[in-house]
């Protein structure tokens, strides 16, 4: 997924690695210190490797889910469409024959390796098996030359339909039709062609692949293939005409042919000349593949959103472990500084050490990520199975693209590097004496002037950027800009107010804004983007934890009595809170991790609640209050069905029956460049189905 991210990510990773190599080469003492720690501190190494593995694994897992979905839909497209790249549908009658004739010229086109003419009509079918009558009102009846069909796009692979033509009185049906009629080879079936019934024997059943699964735009097609001339004579007898359909296969295989879609479509248009305005040129494979890509991307993005909280938590875990390492080595680090190691070298050493852990974690991280992606795909496959209608569900086929692996790897490593670098800078800033004697570090001095200038400028810039962002309800910036402005203002505030007040003020303001923003600007959630949830969650979690940790004394006041009891329990409680209270940074980081986890759980519950509530709404919208929909062919059943329902034995249980007619119409744009089929109801001349429905009592 995200091929457009590949180059920037790899560039950033290459720069980071180059920087690390530079440090390793230019600072031999830092390098020795780093690598010695790695070699001699196995447990710590394992912990850090685990922490940075998490980030890589989650990113890759999310991307692999996208890959798998994308690949599955593509496979489905290749399987069901086979060599068919374009489909030209002409109206019945002389125009259709003229279109067929003009398209014959395409046979010599170097971009095309197959042109196949066919006639089709909507039909319905009935079978009598085991004394039961089964009807299928939506059948596509085809008439095509099996010989030519077998050779259609043959250089690129199986066309899906071949073998001898069915003899007169015999038909070939595809699997979906056989399934819905519960019939097999040798069984009789009644077809209503142009409203006239006729009985045929099923010669064979073919899988719905390639030409054997073609349709006129539906996702699942129940096809019956007739003997040559059958459709023509049925049409003549009924005074009607079948539709002309021409299939075109682009040069190349099932997959590679798609690339030529634009050129071939132009060629077809040219070949049709003035008739182009009355014909439909469809690019089913191209359309399905584009949809597949979009579906894969958006599902991958959803997993990435949920995953990004885990990534933040993973990065915090890394920070936590590193702070712990720093604390444990405090006195020796103090000594190293005392004997003359500069702070920057110490940062270099820590960063090298951490980056090495991150690199060591890369391979297992990728493996776990792929496994996670596979697991999600398996679950997703079960969900899709549950959604399937008439066996039309897509089959989930696991897939991993190198792009996704590289993207995930680069992203995971960069996140780990950033976390490690930031932590290294922080843990290298200690008072040498306090470190050597393992005393708690005193809070930092007042901010330096340059930092103050830079941060104040940024604060002003963010504040300015916040105004239009909030005014226009831009989702991410509405949250982020005011929060950043507040955070950048901290050094300036520290000049005039005590640290505790500033921290509480800034964290409180950010928290209040995070909670208030959706109330003031409700439209920030009118976006398909998921990043707003990530920003909201991260801001809320961080600011709340800072607020709590900065006011721990006040918060603990109500339980102080309890803690200070001179009993054994009181002592135990005091011991229990003493460490977390003293190690404020670590406790804070741990709390943020837990907060984020709780946040994700709540968010997921909320999303599933919204979806569930949505289902009822969608059902109500789609059914308009009716509980049953009966499809039937009006040419066969006439209006009798409606009166039968109204007066039949179940009439007492039926509140209303409403016949609904629909027919295929055609609309052209003023320039006659395209033509699109659309439904109209009720139509003047019902062509296919009438739909009565009964409202639920």
């Amino acid at each position, binding site marked *: 997924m995200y091929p457009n991210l590949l180059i920037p990510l790899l560039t950033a990773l290459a720069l980071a690695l180059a920087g690390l190599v530079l440090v390793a080469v230019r600072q*031999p003492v830092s390098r020795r*210190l780093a690598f010695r720690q790695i070699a001699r501190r196995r447990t710590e190494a394992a912990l850090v490797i685990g922490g940075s593995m998490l980030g890589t694994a989650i990113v890759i897992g999310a991307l692999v889910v996208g890959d798998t979905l994308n690949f599955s839909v593509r496979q489905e497209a290749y399987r069901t469409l086979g060599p068919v790249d374009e489909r030209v549908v002409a109206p019945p009658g002389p125009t259709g024959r003229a279109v067929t004739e003009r398209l014959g010229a395409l046979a010599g086109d170097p971009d095309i390796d197959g042109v196949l003419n066919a006639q089709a009509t909507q039909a319905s079918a009935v079978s009598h098996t085991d004394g039961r009558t089964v009807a299928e009102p939506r059948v596509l009846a085809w008439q095509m030359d099996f010989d030519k069909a077998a050779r259609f796009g043959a250089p690129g692979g199986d066309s899906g339909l071949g073998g001898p033509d069915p003899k007169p009185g015999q038909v070939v049906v595809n699997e979906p039709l056989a399934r819905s009629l519960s019939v097999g080879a040798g069984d009789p079936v009644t077809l209503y062609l142009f409203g006239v019934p006729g009985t045929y024997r099923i010669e064979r059943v073919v899988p719905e692949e390639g030409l054997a699964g073609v349709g006129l735009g539906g996702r699942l097609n129940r096809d019956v293939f007739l003997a040559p001339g059958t459709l023509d004579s049925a049409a003549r007898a009924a005074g009607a005409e079948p539709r002309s359909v021409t299939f075109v296969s682009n040069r190349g295989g099932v997959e590679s042919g798609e690339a030529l879609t634009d050129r071939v479509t132009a060629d077809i248009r040219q070949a049709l000349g003035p008739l182009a305005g009355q014909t439909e040129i469809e690019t089913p494979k191209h359309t399905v593949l584009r949809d597949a890509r979009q579906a894969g991307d958006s599902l991958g993005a959803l997993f990435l959103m949920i995953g990004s909280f885990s990534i933040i938590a993973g990065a915090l875990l890394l920070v936590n472990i590193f702070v712990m390492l720093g604390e444990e080595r405090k006195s020796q680090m103090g000594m190293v500084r005392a004997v*003359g190691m500069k702070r920057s*070298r110490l940062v270099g050493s820590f960063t090298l050490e951490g980056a090495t852990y991150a690199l060591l974690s890369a391979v297992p991280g990728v493996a776990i990520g792929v496994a996670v992606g596979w697991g999600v795909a398996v679950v997703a496959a079960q969900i899709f199975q549950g959604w399937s209608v008439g066996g039309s569900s897509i089959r989930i086929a696991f897939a991993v693209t190198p792009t996704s692996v590289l993207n995930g790897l680069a992203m995971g490593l960069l996140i780990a590097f950033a976390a490690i670098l930031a932590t290294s800078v922080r843990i290298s800033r200690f008072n*040498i*004496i306090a470190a050597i004697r393992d005393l708690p570090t005193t809070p930092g001095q007042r901010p330096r002037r340059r930092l103050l200038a830079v941060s104040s400028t940024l604060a002003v810039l963010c504040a300015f950027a916040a105004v239009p962002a909030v005014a226009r309800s831009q989702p991410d910036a509405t949250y982020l800009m005011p929060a950043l402005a507040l955070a950048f203002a901290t050094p300036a505030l520290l000049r005039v107010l005590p640290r505790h007040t500033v921290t509480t003020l800034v964290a409180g303001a950010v928290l209040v804004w995070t909670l208030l923003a959706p109330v003031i600007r409700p439209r920030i959630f009118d976006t398909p983007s998921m990043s707003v949830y990530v920003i909201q969650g991260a801001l809320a979690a961080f600011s709340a934890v800072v607020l709590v940790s900065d006011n721990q004394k006040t918060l603990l006041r109500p339980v102080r009595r309890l803690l200070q009891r001179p009993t054994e329990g009181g002592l135990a409680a005091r011991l229990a809170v003493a460490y977390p209270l003293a190690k404020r940074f670590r406790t804070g980081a741990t709390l943020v991790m837990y907060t984020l986890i709780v946040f994700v759980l709540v968010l997921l519950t909320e999303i599933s609640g919204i979806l569930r509530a949505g289902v009822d709404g969608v059902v109500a919208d789609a059914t308009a209050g009716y509980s049953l929909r009966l499809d039937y062919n009006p040419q066969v059943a006439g209006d009798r069905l409606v009166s039968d329902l109204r007066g039949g034995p179940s009439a007492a249980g039926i509140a209303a029956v409403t016949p609904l007619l629909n027919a295929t119409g055609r609309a052209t744009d003023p320039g006659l460049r395209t033509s699109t089929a659309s439904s109209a109801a009720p139509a003047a001349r019902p062509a296919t189905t009438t739909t009565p429905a009964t409202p639920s009592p």
Partner: protein
Amino acid sequence: MDSMNTDRALLVASGVRKIYRTGSVEVTALLDLDLLVRHGEMVGVMGPSGSGKTTLLNCLSGLDDIDGGRVEVDGHDLFAMSDAARTEHRAHTMGFVFQAFNLIPVFSAVENVELPLLLVGTRPHEARRRALDMLDRVDLGHRVEHRPSELSGGEQQRVTIARALAGRPAIVWADEPTGNLDSAMADQVMDLLCELNRDEGQTIVLVTHDSAIGARVPRLIRMHDGQLVDDVRQTATARAPSPDVPLG
């Protein structure tokens, strides 16, 4: 260091003040302290616990910040420099021996000793050679590949001394170097320090609360409540107080 240097001032501290702040409590650990140490001197610092001996060492070496005054070492004002420059200066001119030995546990003895040499850019071969020489000098030639956890306390402290001296620093700071050692080992370590001062003119400032050790140093200063209260020169045989004004 030859006798030519002996009269040159190596360290000049004037009006040094250090205040520890813990919450709202303030402790003045050094109060307008003046001190001058010349090249080749071995100075003992004694005083009751909490009198500011350790603080003096930390502040005059530039390891800790001060709240007032000025410290010049080898002609450079320590607190006028950036942290990086001070670190570089420290690497070139100072060595440290602390009560807790503070060796790098993942490094072998020789690697610990060569660390300060490598930090000032000595070539690895040269650093290794000098580190081995120094370990020989402290009688640890047979323990060079051992890691700190594999050495006894006395051996560890001798490694620290080797580390402090390997870079031939102008001044060595030692804070209770024998505090964690039994008396036999303490004697060994003291012998070594005295020998280095006597034979090689190594300048040493040594903090101790042990009067037996205090008796062995040529110059002894006494502290009380963050101030110098006594400053005497003593010969090896008799303690002959000599009037010495530390600051000119």
